[in-house]
């Protein structure tokens, strides 16, 4: 059961949105839509300031509420992994998964109407390649790999650095990690 994770280093992320751009090109994401996005959080008052950038997307949760909420089985785990995909051929566009996702990571595809989302670029992962966002990051701030392999770069990064996930309280067990 391959357990994929993404590790993003907020120390080196510059918020350039290249991850968004590369995803949109790779996956031919329609105009105005995106599967990943960048959040800027600035705290403090001039000149005592702190700014953090975070590239966000589907967390490919180990306990994905969107998969559980899908009435047709369209939202599913790919090939026994934790990569969550939507089989558009059986998606009815009912939007139950959108309501179930704690990360606002799903959207309605235009004009077809099925539900779209980040796939961790499973079409690349199947050949052992990194997702497009990771492969393009000019700051080398993004990493992808197997969490169940202790020698993988993501495992080593998480072992060596303080990190956090978004909305851990949901119990979804998200798999996108942010290094502080």
């Amino acid at each position, binding site marked *: 059961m391959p357990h994929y994770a993404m590790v993003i280093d907020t120390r080196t992320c510059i918020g350039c949105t290249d991850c968004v751009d590369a995803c949109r*090109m790779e996956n031919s*994401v329609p105009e105005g839509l995106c599967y990943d*996005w960048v959040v800027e959080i600035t705290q403090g008052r001039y000149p005592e300031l702190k700014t953090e950038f975070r590239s966000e997307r589907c967390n490919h949760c180990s306990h994905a509420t969107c998969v559980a909420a899908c009435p047709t089985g369209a939202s599913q785990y790919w090939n026994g992994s934790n990569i969550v995909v939507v089989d558009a051929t059986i998606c009815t566009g009912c939007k139950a998964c959108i309501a179930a996702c704690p990360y606002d990571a799903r959207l309605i595809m*235009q004009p077809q109407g099925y539900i779209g989302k980040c796939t961790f670029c499973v079409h690349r992962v199947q050949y052992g390649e990194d997702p497009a966002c990771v492969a393009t990051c*000019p*700051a080398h701030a993004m990493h992808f790999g197997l969490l169940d392999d202790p020698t993988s770069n993501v495992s080593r990064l998480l072992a060596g650095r303080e990190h956090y996930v978004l909305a851990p309280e949901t119990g979804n067990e998200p798999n996108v990690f942010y290094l502080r």
Partner: protein
Amino acid sequence: MQRRDFIRLSSAVASTALLGPSLAGCSQPAEWQRLMTEPPATETPTVCNICFWSCAAKVHTRGERLWKITGNPEDSHCEGRLCTRGTGGVGAYYDPNRLLKPLVRVGKGADQRFEVASWDNALALVAERMTRIAREHGPDRMAALVHGPGAAHISHLVRAYGSDSIAEPAFAQCRGPRDTGFYLTFGQGFGSPEQTDMANARCIVLIGTHIGENLHNSQVRTFTDGIRNDATIIVVDPRFSVAASKARYWLQIRPGTDIALLLAWIHVILAEQLYDADDVSRTFLGLDSLAAYVAAFTPEWAYGETGIEPQQIRETARTMAAVAPATVLHPGRHSTWWGDDTQRARAMAILAGLLGIWGRKGGYYLPEKVALPGYPTPAYPKPKSSWRDLTLPHFPLAGAPVTNVIMDNAYGKDAHYKGLFVYDTNLPMTMPGIRRILEEAARSLDLIVAVDVQPAEITGYADVVLPECSYLERYDPLRNNDEREPSIALRAPALPPRGESKPGWWIAKQIGERIGLGTYFPWKDYQEVIDWQLRQVGTSLAEMRKTGVKIFPRKTPIYYAPGETPTFDTPSGKIELYSKTLEDAGFDALPRYTRPKAPPEGFYHLNYGRAPQHSFSRTQNNPVLYQLMPENLVWIHPTAARRFGIRNGSYVELVNQDGIASNKVRVRVTERTRPDSVWLVHGFGHTAPGLFLAHGNGADDSSLMTRVLYDPIMGGTGMRGNFVTFRKGGA
């Protein structure tokens, strides 16, 4: 249509609208399902042209559909990773407003009406006017303003014709002061890529340069290498830039006072003897004069000018000296700010000299390029007059043609220049105050030709507009830069030219042949030139079409050897802390600090910079990059916003000290800007009606620069001496 924000500020996650199209019996697979079984796409090598960094890349096509562009893994500029803009290069091909046919102007002056022409007629008109200018005035009376790698085609044509008045805004509107200041000190300026060894640095100092927002690919990569290596980052910036957010020391300098800080740093390093006096790699000219000169410039003095605490000035000076020569004092890039910019660069160069970082690991490495011969063509004729004749009386140490000098001599009946060739540079949004001059030039010159991919503002002033195809559809001169790892990169066409657009080499050759310069273009197709050049260095076009990049072994060391005493290309052969060249030309031999003008009551410093999503004013109409950043925001501090009752997200007009108002621009109220300054990204507020996406979006900072501070040394147009206040609402 449901839209999503690509950039969400301060984590305010909006609820997703649950409205959308109903699913009408959808049974087709999703894009990812299609991609799972898709065969590999065709890959063609290119060199990115969205900015000047020129990363080698691969264009992925399926038939005539352009899928994506990715970095070439062999290339040191990008290491296989294009930046946001390069990734968005797809939009340069699909831009809905591209120029697809030649145009000939039917109006004059401010009247910008055109009609479509055939290539034959358009080229014949250019040839007839160029022939007439040569006959009646001499070919030296034609000037060219150019940018980018394709500029070589037009420069070749204009030199063969008999003129050397070929200027790039990259000099007098951008890098000129920096390169001049370092040249006067070390005998050498900086190139692209800058030879900053940030990957090996223990300390990185950025003075007003905002790596991260400026997305020059390998600069960003090596800057983040510095972060990963725990290098001490020192950022001097009035704004809490992205780089400042990564820094251990952020010095919130009062705008325009950099020289005061630099003099105080030099003071500390000399007073505390923080430099290695025995290091023979540094032979100085004028160390004693410098020491005597900076004695008065204490950190306490500098505090009064810069607002930076004396203790912070001392601490940062000691920090950068402690790990020198593994200290990168970044020279910056765009540096035409306050009119004393060459002296500012001189102060940086002097500090770099004292720290002994030139040619040293972790400081500035020594760049090298491939010895690539040029394709043999006849020697150029000697121009009857040179750009120097017009320029040096005004700006004695200008090392390259100055755009503003050319334009000042290119309008009116008695103007020196009678014709203007513009290639790939959008002067109206590059040079403050140029629109009035261009209108006059459009009335009075015998010929203005603009070669461009898109109907940019500049094309409106041209008599003839020649549509070039995008970089994805053409061969261009081989990339061969001075850099860490000498390499050659190929730009080959991945797609057929759209419409009737043509490559720059074809345009230059066609004009050349029509004005009797055919011998300068002794080839049928530019591929012959590239192949010939590649064969001289042991490869070929066929091989390069497969690899895109070829790396060559270095022939010279990347750093000076320990104990080596280098000779510099200065008159004395030494690092010239004291510049006799400047003194002889009537300037200060040591950099003088001049207190900049403070903003009038109720006004704010107008500061500007780059965004990672756009390059200058050339990408706002790119449909991919447009979606990432459709307009610029003006950053206003909360105190200013409160004072003027301006709400975050509302639109205002910026009004400068001379009452000139900008287009309406959206406000970002943020703590990240200094309370006495506003900041906005340059390149927005397009007025060209043909740019459907970009037109009218955001404010053009250059339209507010009615006060230009000329650098008397090299002619740079300082753009920072302008101030703005706010007018609510906006039209």
